[in-house]
């Protein structure tokens, strides 16, 4: 699927809903869990609050803040009508000069100060998030190519981590080095969630704790290449891993592969989660397959649409080719603490295919 084909699909859905236009909004605070309709509709990753107006018929207007950044948008998408504005609401006001039914996308996630003004500008707009994000549940050919490159960068970053992690280096130092390293490889961003300890309760943002011998490092490396995120989840021991940890990690890896095998076109996402849980429950870890130990077994990958959503028991989304998402058991076990293993997968007609060259294994840093 191409970008333009997806835009036509969104336009078709607009007509089905009886809308004349949709107003899509993003505040410029890019976050892994927050979908970005601007990126979906225009391919533009904004610095500040930004809006897209998609008219039925296909005309796209992009309102860019800060005003000086409009030149970048216009150069990247010369086919769009780009409006430079220092205030996204004021910029939008000039676009609304005709009658017709409007829908809004991304409004609930906008900052209150902007959302209230938008609501006054388009008081009757209906929430239309699904029109955009559901249509973008399958990645375009370009997004898939970017995902492959992001996966390559993630794996190189992981190798770099194995080179630099040693006792005395702080979690923060590792995280900033990894982000810098991935940028040197072409990633414009990287969600580096990394922490360590002898018994982790979760994976969390890094802080100033220095690594110690015997630590278990858990890390999510999530580079973004031209706006497309891909993640790998890995676990590393500082020193030699004990037998218990090896066995438990093998169990989590087995669960992950069960999930990957269950990811088949036509099956609901919930089946992937269930397949992972089955492996763990069979070994007596049923109580650890639910919050607070685990909330989900994977997730979609933005920054555009984060469909097909979470790998969770309550996700009935039917899997289709060209969907991209994470499968990560990421399991807390009482004997070892939290263990990370996860791969980005692309749905194909034959099932889920990992985008990584090497899937997760327990790594050790020699002391």
């Amino acid at each position: 699927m191409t970008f333009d084909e997806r835009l036509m699909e969104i336009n078709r859905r607009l007509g089905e809903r009886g809308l004349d236009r949709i107003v899509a909004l993003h505040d410029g605070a890019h976050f892994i869990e927050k979908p970005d309709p601007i990126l979906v509709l225009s391919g533009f990753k904004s610095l500040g609050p930004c809006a897209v107006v998609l008219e039925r018929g296909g005309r796209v207007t992009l309102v860019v803040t800060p005003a000086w950044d409009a030149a970048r948008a216009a150069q990247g998408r010369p086919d769009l009508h780009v409006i430079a504005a220092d205030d996204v609401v004021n910029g939008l006001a000039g676009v609304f000069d005709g009658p017709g039914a409007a829908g809004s996308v991304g409004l609930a996630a906008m900052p209150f100060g902007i959302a209230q003004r938008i609501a006054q500008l388009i008081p009757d707009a209906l929430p239309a998030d699904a029109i955009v994000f559901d249509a973008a549940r399958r990645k375009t050919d370009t997004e898939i190519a970017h995902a492959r490159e992001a996966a390559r960068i993630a794996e190189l970053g992981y190798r770099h981590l194995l080179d630099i992690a040693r006792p005395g280096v702080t979690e923060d130092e590792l995280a900033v080095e990894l982000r810098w390293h991935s940028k040197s490889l072409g990633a414009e961003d990287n969600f580096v969630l990394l922490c360590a300890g002898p018994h982790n309760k979760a994976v969390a943002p890094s802080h100033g704790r220095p690594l110690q011998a015997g630590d278990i490092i858990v890390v999510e490396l999530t580079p973004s290449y031209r706006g497309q995120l891909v993640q790998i989840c890995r676990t590393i021991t500082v020193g030699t891993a004990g037998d218990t940890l090896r066995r438990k990690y093998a169990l989590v890896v087995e669960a992950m592969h069960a999930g990957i095998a269950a990811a088949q076109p036509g099956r609901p996402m919930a089946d992937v989660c269930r397949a992972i849980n089955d492996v763990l429950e069979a070994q007596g870890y049923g109580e650890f397959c639910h919050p607070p130990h685990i909330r989900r077994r994977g997730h979609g990958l933005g920054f555009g649409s984060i469909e097909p959503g979470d790998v969770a028991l309550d996700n009935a989304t039917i899997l289709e080719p060209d969907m991209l998402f994470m499968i990560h058991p990421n399991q807390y076990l009482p004997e070892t603490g939290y263990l990370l293993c996860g791969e980005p997968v692309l749905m194909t007609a034959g099932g889920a295919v990992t985008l990584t060259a090497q899937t997760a294994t327990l790594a050790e840093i020699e002391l």
Partner: protein
Amino acid sequence: MQTMHPTLLIGPADWDAQLMPLDEFRARLDSLWRANPQAGGAIVFGNAADHAALSYLTNFTPKLEAAIALLSRDGAAQLLVGGGVNMIPAAKPLTWIGKLLPLRSAAKAVGEWSTGLPDGSGVMMIAGDAMPDAMHRDVVGAFGSTVAVDDGTAIVQAQMRRKSKRERAAIGAASVILGEAVAGLRQAKDGGITAAVLAAEHAAWRSGAQDVRSLFSLDGGRTLLPFDGPVEMAVDPLQIYLAVRQAGYWAEGFVMLSAQPQAPLIAAEAALQAALAQVAPGATPAALAQTLATATPGFSRHPVTTPSVIGIGLALQQDVAAAEPLIAGEVLSLRVGVSDPQQGAAMVSAMVAVTETGHDIFWSAV
């Protein structure tokens, strides 16, 4: 200054009680309560993109998800942080507040907290405009109709204007790192744009930066771009914007490097020096801007460096009132940008603290 916002804030953000002791935060809170005697409590929002007020009162940097501080006049404080209960241990080192709860039950926590406020007292909402619309509705709804909610954002912003001695030291330290980043840039400038920017960023990270942001120009300073992929070519002149954060506090700088004399750069540097000489208590941002304009005849003002005088500290940009006289303790970024269709463009800047007798320059491109 708007830069590309990263998906996760990384870098050292632990609370350092030596650098910013608890007494500093108590003094800030005392000042807050004095400014609004009717308020029994304050609810302070911050997210990864906008958390200056939250950091000012709690030291907390919301690296991952948003956070809400619930502060009571009697001294009780709690912080609602993103993620489940298992994420709380990772958040604890970042703040002086001892009671941390998951943000997922924000409305419930806010409702319970509000019942403990003194009868008849109101609540200040600080940085509420940055709260997601849906969350704002839930939180305000949790107060019910009996508690008056006032916007206290302006009070905190006014407090944040005059930096304490410790804050000025923190901004000075960030400025030193900025200087090291620029030195890294100079060394690597002939190796291509991306190599130069990466060298600058690496120098900053290695010096203990909490965050680093950059923008660069491919067209001699007419426009600025965020990193979107490697650019191997070298350019002359090389126009860069760098922002460095350390211990919560920002320093920023516009730098232009060139092997040849550049008329726009010469004009911008002269203007910056003229304006810097005028920085002192009583001078107004409007007067400084006027000096910058009159010192660059024949050039247009560059849109990127507008406004030319901003406050800086926990916020990368805090707007200053053009007609409001400067006060001792303020820290400013003074930026001058010029452009001309024939002669090209240039942007330079300086970090400057207003003192009782004049100013201290923390960092300058000149």
